[in-house]
């Protein structure tokens, strides 16, 4: 086998990692290199995207695999054992060097390291941990580190990973348990959720003071996340959101990522290449947001979804409003925060500003426009000091009129 140089390895092992959607560098504990010996800081805020690739996705981290050799045969994955992609493996030192040299040039906030499964789950996890440990202990690297946790590896290795990493993730990938035997025969959801449970328990413990008042060592300060593939198995949006809702509740996840199943260069006969369902993915993120920041229950979002699939024409908040007209119009001068958050087109930030403004003056329709940018979608659903929607709220064709992009009415042909 030809010996690959570092550039060739980088090309192979970053291409192999790009189907993982997560690239967040946010919500790590704030720290800097000022009191250290090496480089690195975490802002503690929203994170920084250092570049955007032409697919519109954020590049915050050096997202690579330690190796794309893999024993598993998950049919959706470009790195499955039966794929013919070129294979490569970094040494620990190579990953460390890439991370530090990218970091010093301000290309990245840190490292997101994952790996194919080689030899065993434990061996693979040990190798991942070794990279993070070297960065932290040998180089005093204070930047962001996201490590993949290999399901089925021992709890001691998870414990070690959490000491070095800001974030840990185990990808569930498949929304439904019954899809595993066909699509990911070496995996099962029990191992995956067990690993999440292990991480969750350690995060909870690390946030409590002990009886003596001491703080336990930090553990995965930016929490854990996971990813689900959208459109590879037969799962409906309702299935996907049910899985997400359960994971948020049971394991305190920070984020669930939804990744539209994307054509890969070397696809399996079981799962041929198709164009990725990007709008569906977008609607799932919107629904996820409604559950986490807008006080929506999952059942409310999926109650009116035909066959458990979200409306692709309307965003899920507007779809809910159209299906629940009796809850509107909402008087923006008197309604509580919870009700304001239900108004289509009004985001969390605008609601919070609205609450401050209305203490000082009566809110008009123009005011609402200045707060939210546009009142077009909002008008049928709100009462302001100078506007009442009257019968508009209940118009039958309201959904059609508010569809985005606006669908031009089709002229009936006479012939």
């Amino acid at each position: 086998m030809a010996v690959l140089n570092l550039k060739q390895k980088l090309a192979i092992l970053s291409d192999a990692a790009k189907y993982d959607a997560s690239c967040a560098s946010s919500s790590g504990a704030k720290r800097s290199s000022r009191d250290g010996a090496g480089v690195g800081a975490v802002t503690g805020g929203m994170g920084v995207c250092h570049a955007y690739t032409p697919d519109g996705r954020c590049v915050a981290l050096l997202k690579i695999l330690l190796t794309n050799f893999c024993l598993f045969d998950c049919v959706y994955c470009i790195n499955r054992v039966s794929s013919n992609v070129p294979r490569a493996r970094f040494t620990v030192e190579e990953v460390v060097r890439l991370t530090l040299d990218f970091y010093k040039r301000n290309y990245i906030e840190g490292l997101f390291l994952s790996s194919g499964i080689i030899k065993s789950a434990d061996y693979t996890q040990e190798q991942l941990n070794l990279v993070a440990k070297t960065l932290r202990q040998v180089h005093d690297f204070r930047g962001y580190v996201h490590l993949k946790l290999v399901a089925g590896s021992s709890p001691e290795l998870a414990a070690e990973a959490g000491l070095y990493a800001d974030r840990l993730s185990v990808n569930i990938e498949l929304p439904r348990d019954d899809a595993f035997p066909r699509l990911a025969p070496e995996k099962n959801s029990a191992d995956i959720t067990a690993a999440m449970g292990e991480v969750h328990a350690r995060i909870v413990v690390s946030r409590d003071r002990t009886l003596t008042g001491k703080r336990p060592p930090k553990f995965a300060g930016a929490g854990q996340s996971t990813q689900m593939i959208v459109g590879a198995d037969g799962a409906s949006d309702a299935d996907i959101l049910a899985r997400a809702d359960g994971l948020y509740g049971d394991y305190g996840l920070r984020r669930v990522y939804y990744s539209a199943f994307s054509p890969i260069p070397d696809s399996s006969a079981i799962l041929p290449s198709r164009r990725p369902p990007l709008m569906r993915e977008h609607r799932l993120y919107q629904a996820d947001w409604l559950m986490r920041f807008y006080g929506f229950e999952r059942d409310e979002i999926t109650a009116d979804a035909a066959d458990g699939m979200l409306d692709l024409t309307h965003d899920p908040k507007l779809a809910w409003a159209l299906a629940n007209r009796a809850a509107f119009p909402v008087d923006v001068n008197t309604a509580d925060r919870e009700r304001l958050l239900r108004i289509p087109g009004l985001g969390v930030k605008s609601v919070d500003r609205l609450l401050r403004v209305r203490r000082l003056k009566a809110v008009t329709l123009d005011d609402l426009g200045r707060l939210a940018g546009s009142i077009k979608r909002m008008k049928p659903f709100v009462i302001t000091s100078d506007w009442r929607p009257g019968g508009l709220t209940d118009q039958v064709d309201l959904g059609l009129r508010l569809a985005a992009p606006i669908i031009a009415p089709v002229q009936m042909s006479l012939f």
Partner: protein
Amino acid sequence: MYAVELAHETDWEGWRAGARALRLAEIPPDQVTWQVGPALGLFEGAAPPKPPVGAGFPAPPGLFDLAQEVILNRDPMRFDLLYRLLWRARETPRLVEIFTDPDVRRAEILRRQVREAVHKMHAFVRFRRIDAADAPETYLAWFEPPHRVLARGVGFFVDRMANLRFSILTPDACAHWNGENLRLTPGVEAPPDRAEDEWEDYWRIYFASVFNPARLNPDVMTQHMPRRYWRNLPEAEVIEGLVTSAQGRTDAMVRAGPSRPSARARRRTV
């Protein structure tokens, strides 16, 4: 008419002293001009009267925080806008919370542009390593921010690189960190001649490899990474090629259909 002379484009202390004196003297905004440096003829006016010793008024909550950010914007009317807010706060002390007010909204927009510029500077500064052999590790960047945000945002880089040396040069100001202290110097007009940095090749390889052609969406890319930044981004030179080849690469993947399992997998299943 009155005129306040400010020492430089982001002279916060000068604006504050001038605005304070004007307001104590009850001089409305429409009788004031703000100028950076000595007046060059046209709009000469009297300096605002010195306020009596001990005179003062409570600072409207939130206004000075807002002003310190807005003043970094390149909008030529920013000083006038800020004094108008201070003036109107006599009647409405909590004016800056009325986000629906046109003046407040304008100031909030300018503030958002400044914050965006700080954030994008943190994102898009690209360092090159420039030290000679045996010299301490040193990095240099040239950057052109849309607003005058270098001094406000440079702490981010010190936090990251406190144990290295670096300089960031911009047309407005330059910042230099020597491992212990930060020094600000006047801006420079043109980017310095710098040798290539071999790591830029690695970065372009990475940037091209993490791009997924099946998800091509250049509008979202340019929305977050506006073209005005591209000329100082080493990765920008590969964007066009990635965009134009994306459709063909995706079609090929969809058309190709499934492949024969690898030899490795066939061995395994025997």
